[in-house]
Structures are given as C-alpha cells and as structure tokens.
C-alpha cells in the first residue's frame, strides 16, 4: 500500500509542470515548528493539529499565570487587613499596596510585552518570505494584476503595522503602564485621562489599520480578479481560434500550467495559513490567559480590595488586551491576505 502511495505521489510530481520548488512555502519559524502538522494537505485537519498541540503545551503556562494571581491576591488580602489597623495612614497603605502589586506585575507584563513584540516580528518576517511565493504562484496562474495589487497592499500594511507596533505601540504600552502605576499611587485625574487616551489611541490605531487594509483588499480583489479572469478568457479564445490543432495544443498546455500553478499555490497557501496560526497560537494563549486571570482577579478585588488597586489590576489586564489585539491584528492581516491569494482569479 505504501509503495503504491509513494509511486502515485512520484507520478503526481511529474504531472505538475510548474517548477514546484519556486513556489514552496517557507518553513515555519523554529518556535512554531512544534505546533506544525507533518501533513499540511488538509487545512481543517492541520488547524485542528495546531490547536491540539498548543493546548498540550499550554498547561505549564496556566500554572505560571495562576501562581502570579495567587501572589497578587495574597498581597491584596494582606493590605486589606493592614487597613484595619488605626495607626497606619490609609494613603500610605494604598501607596504600599500599589507598589507591591506593580512590582509583582511588572516582570510578567514585561515578559508578555517582549513575547508580543517577538510574535509580531516573527509573523511579519515570515509573511515577508511567504508573500513573494504566493505572488509568483498567482501570477503563474494568470492573475498578474491581482497578485501585484495583493503584494503591494499586504507588504505596505505589514510594514506599517509591524513598524507601528514595535516603534509606537510598544513604547505606548510602557508609557501606559508607568502612567497607570503613577495614577494608582497619586490618584490624579489628568494621569487617569491620559491613560485612557493612550489606550484609546493604541486600540484605534490597530482597528483603523485593519479596517483600511480589509477595505482595500475587498475592493481591489473584486476589480483585479474580474480583470484577470476577462484577460484569461480572451487569451484562451484567441489562442484556440488560431489554427485548429496547434490552437488546441496551446490552449491545453496553458490550462495545464494554470491548474498546476493553482495546485502549488493552494499547497503553499495552506502551509502558510497553518504556519501563521502556529506562530500566533502559543503567545495568544499565554497572553490571553493572563488577561482573563487578571480580569477575574480584578473582579475578586472589587469585593474587598481598594478602588486604586482594583483599577491598577484592571489597567494591567487592559495592557494584556492590547497585546492580544496587537498579535491578533498582524495575524489577521496575513490570514486575510493569504485567503485573497488563494481565491485568486475568479
């Protein structure tokens, strides 16, 4: 049975005339390799494998995040007990509580910010290598206008997003973190408003980039896809009408090239989609769990902790939310783009 499968696969390789090596998707980065399935023919099976592998790896991370929350809970309980002692100033207790919570959270938040930044860079770098492969495969399939538009749009928005995230949003996340701690310690309205403004700016920057990119792809893929399809149809009609036999030979040969390019493009696209998902899923689960646990902790703190401490924990969970949005946006950018490449000439 195995011999038959190997023989059939070898025969298939001979059937595909398009130089397949030219259109092979680049190998997923090392960190994402452990989540990648060995067989990437079926997208649904591959995605299921990526999710299963990520969940298996996820258990130790959950324990780590839970440990952090227990530490924070202990600090808050201790501080709320201290508050009952009449000799200690309420402001001093709040300040100490803020500093303790901030010190506990800063290290893990910094780790998560670094993880988020690394994920964005990895996704962007992988996308930069995958894009030419998809562009070439789509162009070989007869979608030269579509591939040019898709490549230009995705490369531009990828550069904009990755540079924006690493050069502006990540520094803003740090500024937001410092301002949130200062606001919790001092309780100043202006700092509070500034924190809200920075958070709003970061969220909307990501949203606007994604909205504009999706809009650009939706409009251009409809227009260019139709143009390419019309050009292909016209070429086929012209060629098959030249001389009966040679016209048919040329028409059949171009059909073979188009079909084989489509097969190779689909294989590269599915591998690319799975690789992007594999890069994204690990950090998403780690940061996402931290985000949910901090939200839960903020809810518990509201029952017996101070207003300032609860607000600080909420702010830190907000930072985690921004990090999730950050990696989600760049991942979505490539997923949408690859799907448009796969859709190709309609």
């Amino acid at each position, binding site marked *: 049975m195995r011999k038959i499968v190997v023989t059939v696969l070898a025969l298939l390789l001979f059937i595909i*005339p398009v130089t397949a090596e030219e259109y092979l998707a680049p190998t997923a980065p090392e960190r994402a390799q452990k989540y990648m399935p060995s067989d990437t023919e079926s997208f649904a099976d591959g995605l299921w494998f990526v999710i299963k592998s990520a969940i298996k790896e996820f258990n130790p991370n959950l324990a780590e995040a839970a440990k952090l929350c227990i530490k924070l809970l202990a600090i808050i309980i201790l501080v709320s007990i201290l508050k009952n002692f009449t000799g200690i100033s309420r402001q001093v207790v709040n300040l100490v509580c803020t500093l303790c919570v901030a010190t506990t959270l800063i290290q893990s938040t910094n780790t998560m910010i670094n993880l988020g930044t690394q994920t964005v860079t990895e996704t962007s770098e992988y996308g930069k290598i995958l894009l030419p492969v998809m562009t070439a495969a789509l162009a070989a399939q007869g979608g030269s206008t579509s*591939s040019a538009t898709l490549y230009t749009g995705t*490369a*531009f928005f990828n550069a904009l997003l990755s540079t924006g995230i690493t050069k502006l949003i990540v520094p803003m996340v740090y*500024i937001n973190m410092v301002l949130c701690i200062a606001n919790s310690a001092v309780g100043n309205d*202006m700092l509070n408003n500034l924190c809200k403004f920075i958070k709003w700016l970061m969220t909307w920057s990501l949203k606007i980039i994604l909205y504009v990119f999706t809009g650009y792809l939706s409009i251009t893929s409809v227009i260019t896809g139709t143009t390419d399809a019309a050009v292909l149809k016209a070429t086929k009609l012209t*060629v098959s009408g030249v*001389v009966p036999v040679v016209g048919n030979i*040329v028409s059949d040969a171009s059909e073979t*090239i188009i079909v084989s390019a489509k097969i190779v493009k689909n294989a590269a696209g599915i591998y690319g989609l799975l690789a992007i998902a594999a890069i994204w899923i690990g950090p998403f689960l780690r940061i996402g769990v931290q985000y949910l646990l901090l939200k839960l902790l903020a809810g518990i703190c509201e029952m017996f902790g101070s207003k300032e401490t609860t607000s600080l924990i909420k702010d830190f969970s907000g930072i985690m939310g921004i990090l999730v949005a950050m990696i989600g946006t760049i991942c979505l950018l490539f997923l949408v783009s690859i799907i448009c490449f796969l859709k190709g000439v309609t």
Partner: protein
Amino acid sequence: MGAISGYILTVICIAIVSAIVTRICGNNQAVGNIIKLITAVAMTITIIAPFLSISVDGLSNYMHTIEMDANGIISRAQEQAENDLQAIITEKVETYIINKAATYDAEISVSVEISASDSLIPDTITIEGEVSPYIKEILVKIIEDDLGIPEDRQIWK
C-alpha cells in the same frame, strides 16, 4: 532604542510635571483652567511629535520599492510559466508530428522552435529521418494545415 527610551522619558516627565503643576494651581479656578489647557496642549504635542516627523517622501519611495519588487516577482513568475508552457507545447507538437509520420510507417525525429512572440505558436521545425518524397509531401501539408507552419519554415534533413 535610544530614541524610543528618550521619547518614553519625555512623555513621562511632561506627564509628571503637568500633574504637579495642575495640583499646585488647582485651588485657583481661573488659573487652574488655563494651566490645565496648557498642560494638555504640551502633552498632546509631546505624544504626537514622532508622527509629525514622518516623511511623505520616504513613504512614497517605499511604495515605489514595493511596486518594483512586485513587478520583479511577477515578471520572473511569468517568464518561468512561459518557459514551462513552451516546453509542453514543444513536446506535444513533436509528439503530434511523430505520430502522424508513424501512421505512414515513417520514422522521424522532430525539433520544434517557438518564436519569442506572445502567441506561443511553433515558429520553425526541423525534421530528420528517411522519408519518401510522397510521404514528405503529405507531412508538409499536414504540418502546414494543422500546425500553421508554412513549408519555408520546415527544415527537412
């Protein structure tokens, strides 16, 4: 990295100074409002300063580079596809002529050349083999009618 940390430090310093100044002048309603306005303007300018320094020329140059890259990738892919297409057409035309000759019990070898034009129609063919004048005449006619290659572009050896 130095520029980023400088930017962060500037924003934090302005925020802290603004908070202190607002706190000190907060008791006086009239002065407090003006101070709040000034600090808000200072904060906004500090935060958006990096955006203002973005050069439009740099952006248009970058767009041009991306377009050039896209055109390069596409032309290479098209060239590759055209080469593959030429190889398939050459093979099929050669097989067609050999099969036609075989029906007349003639053994020949064929070499097809495709012109560089976009049509991908065979340009010249070279036929080698021992063929009688009668069969040669039939094959010349078949090649002319079916493949569109006139006699003057058929090289018989």
